[in-house]
């Protein structure tokens, strides 16, 4: 089972965290601190697995982002690498459609995108991909469709909220 998912930039800045096992706030920051120290210093031609405090951590760098997943001892490293790749493709597809930029460019600039647009989309995509630390949806298309559907729900709500009449009703409450 996947214990946690971390996205860390090459500079060691955390971009996304998700925990599937109970970790306290203190443990979380400790894991990130120590793990980024281990992973960021590894050279490009080394293998993508790190043994760390009894965990296995599988990481892969895409553009300037490191995607890390902490897994159990008996989990399949290659499978997790595939999940990571899967996730990246989903994000790529999603952001590609949203910002109408060329997908490859998006992947390169993932770091930027995470900061400026649709931050939460990365979380929701992860929620569609994994549940309780297990892969639940292996179809990229389905995940993309689900996220898009939820997005449109959110948009509708936003439009309604920012409509003039709503603001006036707020003000006059």
């Amino acid at each position, binding site marked *: 089972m996947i214990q946690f998912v971390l996205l860390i930039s090459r500079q060691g800045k955390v971009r996304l965290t998700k925990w599937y096992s109970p970790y306290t706030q203190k443990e979380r920051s400790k894991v990130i601190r120590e793990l980024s120290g281990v992973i960021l210093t590894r050279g490009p031609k080394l293998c993508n697995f790190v043994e760390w405090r009894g965990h296995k951590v599988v990481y892969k760098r895409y553009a300037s982002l490191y995607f890390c997943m902490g897994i159990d001892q*008996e989990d399949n490293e290659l499978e997790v690498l595939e999940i990571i790749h899967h996730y990246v493709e989903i994000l790529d597809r999603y952001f590609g459609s949203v910002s109408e930029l060329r997908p490859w460019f998006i992947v390169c600039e993932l770091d930027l995108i995470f900061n400026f647009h649709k931050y939460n989309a990365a979380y929701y995509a992860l929620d569609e991909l994994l*549940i309780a630390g297990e892969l639940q949806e292996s179809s990229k298309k389905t995940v993309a469709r689900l996220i898009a559907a939820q997005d449109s729900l959110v948009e509708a709500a936003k439009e309604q909220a920012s409509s003039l009449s709503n603001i006036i009703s707020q003000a006059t409450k």
Partner: protein
Amino acid sequence: MASPSLMDTLFQRGLDDIIKGVRHQQSSTESIFISRVIEEIRREIKSTDLQTKSTALQKLTYLNSIHFIDMSWASFHAIECISSPTFSHKKIGYLAISQSFSESTPVILLISNQIRKDLKSGNEFEVSLALDCLSRIGTVDLCRDLASEVFILMSSSKVFIRKKAIGVVLRLFEKYPDAVRVCFKKLVESLEGSDSPIVSAVVGVFCELSAKDPRSYLPLAPEFYRILVDSKNNWVLIKVLKIFVKLAPLEPRLAKRLVEPICDHMRKTGAKSLVFECIRTVVTSFTEYESAMKLAAAKIREFLMEDDPNLKYLGLHAISIMAPKHLWAVLENKDVVIQSLSDEDPNIKLESLRLVMAMASESNLMETCRVLVNYALKSDPDFCNEILGSILSTCCQNVYEVIIDFDWYVSLLGEMSRIPNCKKGEEIENQLIDIGMRVKDVRPELVRIARDLLIDPALLGNPFLHRLLSAAAWVCGEYVEFSRNPVELMEALLQPRTSLLPSSIRTVYMQSAFKILIFCIHSYFLQKEDMTSEVSDLASKRQCSESSDLATGKALVQSDQDEGFNPRESNQSYEYPSVVDTGDGQSSTPTFMEKKSLMHESIVNLLNLMELVLSPLSGSLDVEIQERACNVLGFIELVQQEFSNPLIRKEANLDREEVIASRVVEWVHDVFTEELGPVSVTAQDRVPIPDELVLKENLTDLEAICGGVELPAPGSFSLTSPYYGESAVFSVSNLQAEEDSEPSTESTSLLTEHRKRHELYYLPSEKNIIPANDYPPANDPSSSINTNDATEDLVKLADQSLVSKRKPNHAKPRPVVVKLEEGEAAPVVSKKPELKDDLLSGAIHDILLGNEAKAASSQSNPSDKSSSKRKGKAKHVDLLDSKENLAVGEQPNHENPSSRRSKHRGDGKQKSKKSKGKKNGDGREDDGEKESQKIRDHHGRHKSRQRADAPINVVPQTPDIPDYLL
């Protein structure tokens, strides 16, 4: 704080603004910026407008996940957000909750109703939010309250919802095992579905469940088997394989059925992850199947040949799983393994190191170690120590089982300690002492190695080696009789750089020096009887040299004090070796070494040297050192009287003094030559506690008595008067003089004192009295176990490449290694499964047992039509079963191997027939029949499940694997 105004609402900053803002800050102002934002959020979040509130919450969630800002204070606001009718607010609220809530969040019970409402919502996305959230934060209470809702969702018409509900079941079972009664049937049914996302989710759940308690899921093996054969989905296949790894050890017959399909997958699939999972499954669970192992090894070889470091790492990892039982796999790949030792990836290097050590055997150990030690010299410090560590741990396995030539091993230890990056001092220390005690034959070599280590002043500078040096010092003291030149040892032990050692180790040095001194004097007395005539000659010579000694000696008395204790004379502090030279003369050392005899002169020099070095230490700040120095000085004082006035003594009362001194030396020597042996860890337990000894009594009463006495921590206790040392010496010598008449008590008490204090290397005193009871004496052929006789004439391999080629050995027979009786290790406490797992597996048993009750009865149905023969057999089997079940009925323990076996033997025939048909694929009929039987099987199972639901007094049945699998 005022409640937020309309302005706040209108001009609220969104998440994007915050992210941009944080990004534009310098790292120094970042925290200020964040704390300002938090203040803003605290204000905004109180808004009655849910839009404002949820935006504030969203920002807070972001800051919490990235910057670890505390958000527990906002938990109630998050609950308000999820109760909003608007989807976007709900979404933000649920994200915040799943990120920040834990079991201990006080308001967590409040969300129960809201989640239930959302689970029942008509909007599938709201349902999915609630499910996601539940899967993350579900507590016992939440799971109990919501189990029935989740159960309903498991049969939802929407695949999207159903698979999430199945995912949540994992959490449900973990927190609230009773949920099994409700959901398990549904879960098993989902396995049979054809919707691949559903199957994938269910298999994922079973994979996690079976990791905790595989036995409960054994009855589901046929389902998993079907998936293994039919599924095209690699994700699912990998999970199913993981489940089978857990199940296989419990049911030996599974392996036979599984090997073929797994090998099929291994051959056909292109997905490396699946191949690897197959390999791992085979090498962990199916080690007896030669052909499967061969195939796995071939696949591993492919992995190793790839450039991808991931595959290489995993390949090596897989080999290391095989290594214990199938060493050939390692040997076949040894070229790659050895090559990988110099890979740039530390993970790969470590794996290959493990493999290299796994290949080591008696025959090639020397060669392997030689290669590795040379390699360690060239590699970086971390890996160097990894190498040394693995050599040490491999060699000491099972009381040095692999080592034949201990002389070689001891010198290897010496060599290893000279590697500049070596940090393994402590392990080497343990082994040096351990070998010294266990292997009598190696002691001369051990002393030689220890001497080399002690003499090298460079080693004293490496703090990691200090422990090792203390072992060397101990060895030299304990086995000084094997030394070729005790005087040299003495000099090494007393060299000025020993001041670099921590005091605890320095005390070992001093104690060892004392032992050497006793040994020298003792052997001097022994031989003196023969050479009384020589004495006078020597004495006159000695007198001149001694006078010079005294002259220099006085000036140097304080010269060797550590830490510049007496700065005035520190400029002379390293001159004393010259004293030795003048005393001994350049030539005298070699001569007496050759003769193996000790001159009076050299004894005197030894005494002088010791006195010179130790007298400053009698004023040491460290009590241990001080104590020891004083003791030794006292002894020297006693003996010196005899040596200092040889002429007078000789003429006058030679006999009396001689006798006293030699008696003292005799006693002390006797004590020191007492053999020390290894002690069983349980030795202490075997000592009966005397009746009158109360160990558990409260000692607080002593507090009143000892209250005033403060026990100093070592090092903090100091007697700082610079003159104290000298006066102590004098007083001790006075005492000594007075008590000359009773030297025995003095010296033995000295010794017991030493023993008491210097516990590091002393054994409990009972040990000395009855050593034979607790460990067999070395070289006692009856009690020591020498397992390696047969291999004595096998040799180290000469091949660079670590081939285990065996050459006739010129080597000496393996020396006897003293071993303690087996079973000294503490009995392994079998791990008890947690209570919760018990509950869970208990619940699952109930369900599945019921299941099988029907399975057994329905089993006969499908065979009815197929052939009357079969039918008969099946009935017979059922009869057997029921009989046995009656017998076992009392104990609802499902594991009754006999009943299971008998049944399966009957089934096995059926099965083998069927599988043959399947394999040949020649009979469509066969296939069709199988198909239909399967369907009927399932059908029957459903029925039985339903039946099992009713709390009827179903006879507990052994859970079994229906016949078509086995």
